[in-house]
């Protein structure tokens, strides 16, 4: 369909900077996610693309077409909102037909198109009903049908799953993904749910405080977080973070909560070059385990068990290191008593280090050093 590009786009509301100098590219025919906490500016970016907001600075391009100054009706985008935003005084049929009627299309053609798209979304039996007679999932399908019926170049989804219950969310999630692939439409999906972004998107752009934190495939964003924000935002539970102090005696060591840790070989050079005195040590809960005696080949930190939460498939063990808590995923049969002295054992290749001031990942963020 079309590629969407944002070039140095900023949006200010009075004194508040909602979007700050954003450069983004949403590839043609791919499913992209804008992921960030509430208030991060991700929805604002989506509304800028839709034309509901006008950028304070910068340019928005659909392919070669500069749409920065175009009103929403001339952009040919489909937009689905979290609250469905159906027209309550119209039937489902009229809701879906609304964008077509505005285009003054012949009523027979409208009928065909509405029927096709309702078959695609399996709502053909609901056409005579009013929105308030539908369940949440059905209403969301109608909203999708209305967005798709005009064959938009770009499909914009603003947290479309947030108002649905957990089970339905999984179904519609798969359905949207299937539709997007079938239609090969450029889709941009705004969400605060990192699992949703991971499972649906080909590309994820992580947004915080109006700025792009990282862009990449779900794998990259999860495994190679560019900064501390991305590391602690992605994953459930998110990455563990421990403050460390760098000790430059007999090589390079990191003092984590009173115990000396030897950084993995690949990081030694980076640390030596940097003038850092402090460093933030991070690792994912599934990349560590809790053991009674430290083993060779791992990074081990002494800790004290705080609580064990069994989740059926696995257990989350929370342990204290110095004053910080650390969550580790363990097999369900693992049993630890609160107060027990244990070791947290981290896989050295999965360890991440962040500059405490810039919060950048020392491996990923340094140009030419990754």
């Amino acid at each position, binding site marked *: 369909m079309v590629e969407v590009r944002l070039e140095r786009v900023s949006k200010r509301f009075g004194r508040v900077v909602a979007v700050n100098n954003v450069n983004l590219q949403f590839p043609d025919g791919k499913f992209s996610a804008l992921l960030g906490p509430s208030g991060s500016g991700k929805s604002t970016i989506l509304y800028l693309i839709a034309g509901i907001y006008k950028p304070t600075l910068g340019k928005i391009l659909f392919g070669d077409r500069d749409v920065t100054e175009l009103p929403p009706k001339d952009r040919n985008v489909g937009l689905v909102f979290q609250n469905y935003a159906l027209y309550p005084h119209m039937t489902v049929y009229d809701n879906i037909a609304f*964008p077509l009627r505005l285009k003054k299309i012949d009523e027979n053609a409208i009928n065909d198109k509405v029927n096709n798209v309702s078959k695609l979304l399996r709502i053909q039996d609901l056409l005579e009903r009013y929105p*308030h007679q539908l369940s949440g999932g059905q209403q969301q399908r109608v909203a999708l049908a209305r967005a798709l019926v005009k064959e938009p170049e770009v499909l914009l989804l603003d947290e479309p799953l947030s108002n649905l219950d957990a089970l339905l969310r999984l179904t519609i999630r798969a359905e949207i993904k299937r539709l997007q692939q079938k239609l090969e439409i450029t889709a941009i999906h705004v969400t605060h749910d990192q699992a949703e972004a991971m499972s649906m998107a080909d590309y994820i752009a992580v947004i915080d405080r109006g700025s792009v934190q990282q862009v990449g495939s779900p794998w990259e964003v999860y495994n190679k977080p560019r900064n501390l924000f991305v590391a602690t935002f992605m994953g459930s539970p998110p990455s563990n973070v421990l403050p460390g102090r760098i000790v430059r005696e007999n090589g390079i060591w990191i003092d984590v909560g009173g115990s000396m840790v030897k950084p993995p070989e690949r990081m030694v050079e980076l640390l030596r070059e940097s003038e850092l005195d402090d460093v933030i040590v991070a690792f994912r809960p599934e990349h560590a385990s809790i053991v009674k005696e430290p083993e060779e080949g791992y990074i081990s930190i002494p800790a004290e068990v705080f609580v064990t939460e069994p989740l059926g498939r696995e257990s989350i063990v929370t342990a204290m290191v110095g004053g910080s808590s650390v969550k580790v995923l363990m097999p369900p049969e693992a049993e630890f008593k609160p107060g027990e002295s244990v070791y947290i054992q981290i896989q050295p290749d999965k360890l991440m280090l962040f500059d405490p001031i810039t919060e950048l990942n020392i491996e990923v963020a340094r140009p030419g050093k990754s």
Partner: protein
Amino acid sequence: MASSILSRMFRRKAKPKVEQLRDVETIKRRRLNAVIGIAVGLATLPLVALYLLLALSSFADRIVTGPDIIEAEYSTTNWKLLFQGKLEPAAGRLYDLRELIMIIVNTFIVALGVTVAVVLISVMAGYAFSRMKFRGRVGLMEFIILLHAFPGVALIIAVYAIYVWSLGAVPKDVLTEYRFLYTILARASLEIPMSIWLMKGFFDRIPWEVEWSAMVDGASRIRVWRQIVLPQIKPGIAAISIFAFLAGWEDLIYVHVFLYTGGIKTLATFLEEVIGNIETTYLPIAAAAGTLYLIPTIVFFVLTQKLLLEAMSGGVKA
């Protein structure tokens, strides 16, 4: 002393009462319904009773107020006399049927005129206050509430002064029309403040997303307003229409000052004439006139009631 009494009281209260386990919500709901039913009944019964007595009296040979309901003789004489222009069975004709119809038409002109003015202005102003950001918006809204606090009577001198001042610019041959227009606008301006607030409330209930959605679907701002927003605020329009219509229909002061003095009568001033001197008036005919005055109000309310109660929910999750 006091503390020991208190503690004894509390001890008694703290004693566990043996109570059957019941569904908490339904009990409350049922009790609430009963309370509301009784309260609404007590509040409206006296009024309803008085209106019923008035309507009944219009068919009786006397004003019925109680046990005399049984003794009174009923006929349509009062109504016949009213339409013949006789305000007493023995009196001569004061007006003919054509004149009475003109009075009713005049009343409708004022009431509907006020309705149209109020609806047009408050729907647009309400939308602006709900949706648009402009300098002084909050201050203006507070000022509007203040305006609503002024009683119409208090303003009449100033409104009259402006009327007299404006008369200079009005050609003589459209004076009657101008009197109507002035009455309608003056009366409407008293209703508009509250109506703006009501309409703003209705607009506030429509999420921005619905409007955005329609714009993305290809509609212009005006079309969104007409095809998406307006149909959703129909109950609000019905509400302010009723209030505005009743305000115009019931108004006595403004129609008296600007119309009656020019020889144009409405039902309110007609009723004022009919009753005239309450001690010498033949009251059953006055009752018929009063009932006549009530009918359109009731009809109008019955017609719009469905719209008022129409629940426009769903399709948008707030």
